[in-house]
């Protein structure tokens, strides 16, 4: 059966987003939709898992098979969906608090095992929904509700840690460059294996990063060798400016290589019946 090409409207929710005016999440929401439409993936073939946070309040703002998980736990259900039915496109949305702290074990394990999901981190460098506490990516000295005189902890570097954990695709996007962000999301979705896009987002209310990133971001040169991990680290560790685009991309074994059963058919479409008769002989 040929599907008609999906349109923007197919993905559009009837609900009005509840984000603050000026919030970067509007841009991410729209760029996700555009990326999926341009890749011609229809909404019913798309599963998006969400975390709890301002990001998760987007769960009913895109029309697709959405799964709003618990705080820090957006990734595990996404992995499970992919195991059950790998014909589906599976995205996992999560915030900086959710992924880099509450769910950090999932971040590392999912990257290490090269699970075939696309992780989109809505990284506003603050706890948005809980009204402005320090997050793992909050800049040092930035005043928050939990560090009123300025955050004392040095922030984590999501790109470097993802690289170290073994991610096969690591990229950064910025809501200030929507079309570029969309392209990065498209590449991430197309990547076979674990893809992480750290999306610099402005929390207009608690951490307005607009001025900072307007000045300090640049698009990584087209000639950057994406398979060179050391170069990727070098860009990731720059502190005066912030590269945008794909830092690193290699092809690595993912679930189709690891589980022979998934080679010919999805798990849900397996037709053979499990049989215990032959197994009983061992116990005779």
């Amino acid at each position, binding site marked *: 059966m040929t599907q008609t090409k999906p349109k923007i409207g197919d993905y559009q929710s009837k609900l009005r987003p509840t984000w603050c005016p000026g919030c970067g999440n509007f841009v991410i929401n729209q760029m996700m939709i555009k990326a999926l439409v341009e890749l011609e993936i229809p909404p019913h073939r798309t599963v998006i898992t969400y975390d709890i946070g301002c990001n998760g309040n987007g769960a009913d703002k895109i029309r697709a098979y959405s799964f709003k998980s618990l705080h820090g736990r957006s990734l595990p259900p996404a992995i499970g969906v992919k195991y059950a039915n790998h014909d589906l496109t599976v995205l996992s949305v999560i915030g900086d608090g959710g992924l880099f702290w509450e769910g950090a074990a999932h971040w590392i394990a999912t990257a290490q095992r090269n699970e075939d999901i696309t992780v989109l981190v809505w990284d506003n460098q603050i706890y948005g929904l809980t009204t402005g506490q320090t997050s793992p990516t909050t800049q040092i000295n930035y005043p928050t509700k939990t560090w009123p005189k300025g955050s004392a902890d040095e922030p984590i570097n999501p790109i470097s840690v993802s690289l170290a954990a073994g991610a096969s695709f690591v990229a950064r996007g910025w809501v200030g460059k929507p079309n570029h962000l969309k392209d990065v999301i498209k590449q991430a979705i197309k990547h076979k294996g674990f893809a992480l896009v750290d999306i610099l987002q402005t929390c207009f209310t608690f951490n307005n990063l607009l001025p900072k990133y307007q000045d300090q971001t640049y698009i990584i040169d087209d000639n950057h060798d994406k398979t060179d991990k050391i170069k990727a680290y070098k860009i990731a560790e720059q502190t005066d400016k912030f590269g945008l685009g794909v830092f690193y991309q290699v092809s690595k074994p993912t679930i189709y290589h690891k589980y022979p059963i998934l080679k010919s058919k999805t798990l849900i479409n397996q037709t053979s*019946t499990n049989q215990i008769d032959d197994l009983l002989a061992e116990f005779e």
Partner: protein
Amino acid sequence: MTNKDIVSIRIGGPAGSGVKSVGKLLQKSLQHAGFYSFGYLGYPSLIRGGYNFYQINLSQQPVDYSLSYADIFIPLNSLALEQIKKTGSKPRYIIADKTALPDDKRDLPDKSQVIKLNLTSQLKKLKITKISLNSALVGALFKFLNLPLEKLNQVIKKQFVKKGRAVIGQNLKAAALGFNSLDHKPLSLSLPTTKVKTLVMTGNTAIALGFIQGQGRFFSAYPMTPSTSILHYLASVTDNQSILVRQASTEIEAIGIAAGAAYAGVRTMVATSGGGLDLMSEFISLLGIAEIPLVIVDAQRTGPGTGLPTWQEQSDLNIARCAGHGEFPRVVMAPGDPAEAFHLIQEALNLADEYQIPVIFLTDKYLGESLFSLDKSTFDHRSKIKRGKILNLINDKHHLFPRYQFDQDGISPRPLPGNVNGIHITTSDEHDVYGNSIESDPIRIKMQTKRLSKLGSLAKNLPPAKAYGNLKAKTLVVGWGSTKKVIQAVVDRLNLAGLHLSYLYPLNHAVLKSILNPYQQIILVENNSTGQLETDLKLAGVKNIKTLLKFDGEPFFADELLEKIKLLI
């Protein structure tokens, strides 16, 4: 029980010394000779050293419980003898290689007849590997019990087939050496004549087989004793079955991945022990509100905390009933033996699917790791697969499909991701019929009421427990989970009535009361320190309950329970 028909043999020694190998070879050979047997294993949470034992009870009749004493003790080193002395048990016979006996005779338990063998030195003389001592010991025991060596030889040939002919040859020689090293046979047993085809299997394997038979497709777990052998077994069969097994990075991830797989439509199960269940509880709560089916096996062990990681307890009933914040429906069930485990896990998969709920399946160290003889026909019990209201065909177009719509029976049809007309939101937030998040709203009350209404139907529809034994007796002995067989044995012996509860939540209090109240006295047996089922029985209005508890890390032994119940009746 001081039952003349049962011979109990205990093999003891340090971890890694072959206790399990000797025990397994012996139990397999006895099975092959036509006996029923029961193997109970005790071991510390260590890889080398410590003290391990493997106790085998054998009989011509089915025997599926443990005993507190051994008729025959086979120590594999002198530490093992010290252990048996410490417990005060006095085996009638001690059969041992010279190397496992103390130099000083006074260190032997008095009253035991010691049969000292010279196997190690003879093996050495014949240039047979030291490890074949296992087969030599079993050979000696076969002679001791007056059983034909041929039966043992057949099992050796089968057991070592993968190791090659040389290894088989060495073990056959060793078995013969052991067999010929004894000339007396004081415990002459006659070979069983009945020819039932039996299997020797743990409860965990039966659970895994039930999952396979129930067309389970996805299993994830993080290793934790005593659940781990389910993970091992399922991982070992994935070449020939349509099953995917994922060892997860944490229990939280295990159940999170499982939730995703189950949501996407495949039959899914996870397994853990109490500590892992604690970690899983947040996702159990999500399953409750998102109405996702999942079977969660909790193989209990001695708690709290890390407790006694490799020992027995039934102390997770409370947490099974209430794990996860908020209020939502679930089923808690507990099989009593491997046959029931095989059958019940298939029911668990059906119930999870039909009611779109988490089902917590309680087993424990004793049931999960003990080796039971089962009639092969046990595995003919194959439940019909019921997947509930999964919707494959939806004709109407929907902007969003009302996944959580209000149906008469409280169960909403469930389209799976990929269905062109079934798009909806699945969420841990309270939601409207489409899955959109809501705030405090009249729909919240309707949704919560809808979900909880499943508990009412479950309490009505779950099969009620049936009393057995002498229904006119004054005393009814009640238990749940792995105490089933030991209680049955005692109830039989004392001509009492018994009741085994397989379904533990939700309980139909009215039915329970009507079953229990005709008895003058209820004896409740629980392998824990507080009596977790007692609360329920009291709530149901059951009177005159006497509770027998045990929480030393071991299961109830039949002889022990017999004496304790005798004192109460």
